């Protein structure tokens, strides 16, 4: 059974149709990516799935439960967390306080400490800077903090919206290897990326989004070799 299933998702901004009824699913244990150009609707799809942007129509099922109308703040508890585009860490709070916010729905102190230690093991850099104001971190560190913050809630499904945006190539590689690590540790991942080659390389399956429609789907390797994808997204 699919962990996340989205059916006929429709989103409008005023009279403009941003998503024209798209359907996709993510199975447990997969890395699924959604690639597409600027303005294709990738972020809209991410945000409407979790209810930040209202949906006009369609249905969202997570872990067998209908969450179409569930308010955004209740979705974290169900096990789905999103790292928003542009990182959006809390700049005025410290690294540690950001991680606390990530664990906002977690009531158990012991559980919180365990998760915190895991994060500090995974990102020793953040452990060093735990008392630093998050706004003063470098771009790469901020991305790591944004991902860590999301991981604090122990999600079954981690949604990443353009994690490589604005980062130097060496950091992009690092972020992608972290994604692979998280996946290996058992987290299901839905990835939205403009960096199509990197995304397809690590994905089990992928969808291509073009101006509000899903135009192609397949395994990562299939799409990597598809002439359309090569022409439009891989510079081939």
């Amino acid at each position: 059974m699919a962990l996340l299933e989205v059916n006929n998702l429709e989103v409008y901004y005023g009279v403009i149709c941003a998503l024209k009824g798209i359907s996709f699913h993510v199975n447990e244990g997969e890395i699924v990516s959604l690639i597409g150009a600027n303005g294709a609707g990738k972020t809209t799809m991410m945000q409407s799935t979790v209810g930040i942007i209202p949906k006009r129509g369609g249905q969202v099922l997570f872990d067998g439960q209908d969450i179409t109308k569930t308010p955004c703040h209740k979705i974290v508890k169900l096990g789905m967390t999103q790292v928003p585009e542009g990182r959006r860490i809390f700049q005025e709070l410290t690294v540690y306080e950001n991680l606390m916010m990530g664990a906002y729905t977690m009531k158990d102190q012991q559980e919180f400490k365990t998760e915190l230690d895991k994060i500090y093991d995974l990102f020793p850099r953040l452990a060093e800077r735990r008392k630093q104001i998050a706004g003063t971190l470098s771009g790469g560190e901020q991305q790591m903090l944004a991902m860590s913050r999301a991981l604090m809630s122990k999600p079954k499904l981690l949604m990443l919206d353009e994690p490589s945006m604005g980062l130097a190539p060496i950091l992009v590689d690092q972020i992608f290897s972290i994604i692979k690590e998280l996946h290996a540790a058992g987290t299901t991942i839905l990835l939205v990326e403009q960096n199509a080659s990197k995304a397809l390389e690590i994905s089990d399956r992928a969808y291509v989004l073009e101006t509000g429609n899903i135009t192609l789907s397949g395994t990562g390797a299939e799409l990597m070799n598809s002439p359309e994808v090569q022409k439009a997204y891989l510079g081939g």
Partner: protein
Amino acid sequence: MEVILSTLINGLSLGGIYAMIALGYTMVYGIAKMLNFAHGDIIMVGGYVIFVVMATGNPLLAVAVAVIACVILGITIERVAYRPLRGASPLAVLITAIGVSYLLQSLAQIIFGSAPKMVTVYEFGSVQFLGATVQVASLVTMAVTVVVMAVLTLFVKYTRLGRAMIAVSEDRDAAQLMGINVNAIITITFAIGSSLAALAGLFYLMKAPNVSFTMGAMPGIKAFTAAVIGGIGSIPGAMLGGILLGVVESISYKITAIAPYTDAIEFSILIIILLVRPTGFLGKKRREKV
């Protein structure tokens, strides 16, 4: 010397009142991103509640009931008038807030009439301090202000809820993604602001023991000015702006030549600050994301 001391104490206590009101403006602005122009009228409602409950002759009961009534009123206003407009244009919200302000004033006028009512909450009397005559009520106001500011600062900085408030004020969507219930945080913010307005109303009545349906207007607008001078959205800014404005007002009233122009002087400070430092003393420049 005595004059300076008593003027200063007067100014600090008046400033404390402004600061308490300004905190309501600034917190609501920071977290709900709106100017609640009905905030001053909460003071007025608090004043009338104190007036009514003082019929029992128990000042503590009057204050407690006023705080509770204002909290309920603040939450209700947010729920009924502002929440349906979440995401609407700032202008629509602003106009609604002004409408709520007039609604509260008109209701008070209908219920209690236009003539001001005298209310004496409690006579603290005065003491001699370094040769100056000091109203004990002023000292109490200052002490309560200090406690309120300390508690609020610690609350925001060191509690889970306080940090969630900072998170919501910085980035509402990201806060939702963490599982923070933004509506609940906004409700709590209105509750805190309204309870401080009730307290401010109490201390205002100790300075000028008249309740009228317009009594909230002037302290409201002064406190709003204080919040902007200090940097709207900033909690320490509201405290600083409030106290600064209170001291300026108190000094200006003591100097006969400029006393009639006191209000003008205070609002001129606002204009100068807006020209020189538009973000106020402690306000931050927010980077606008595109």
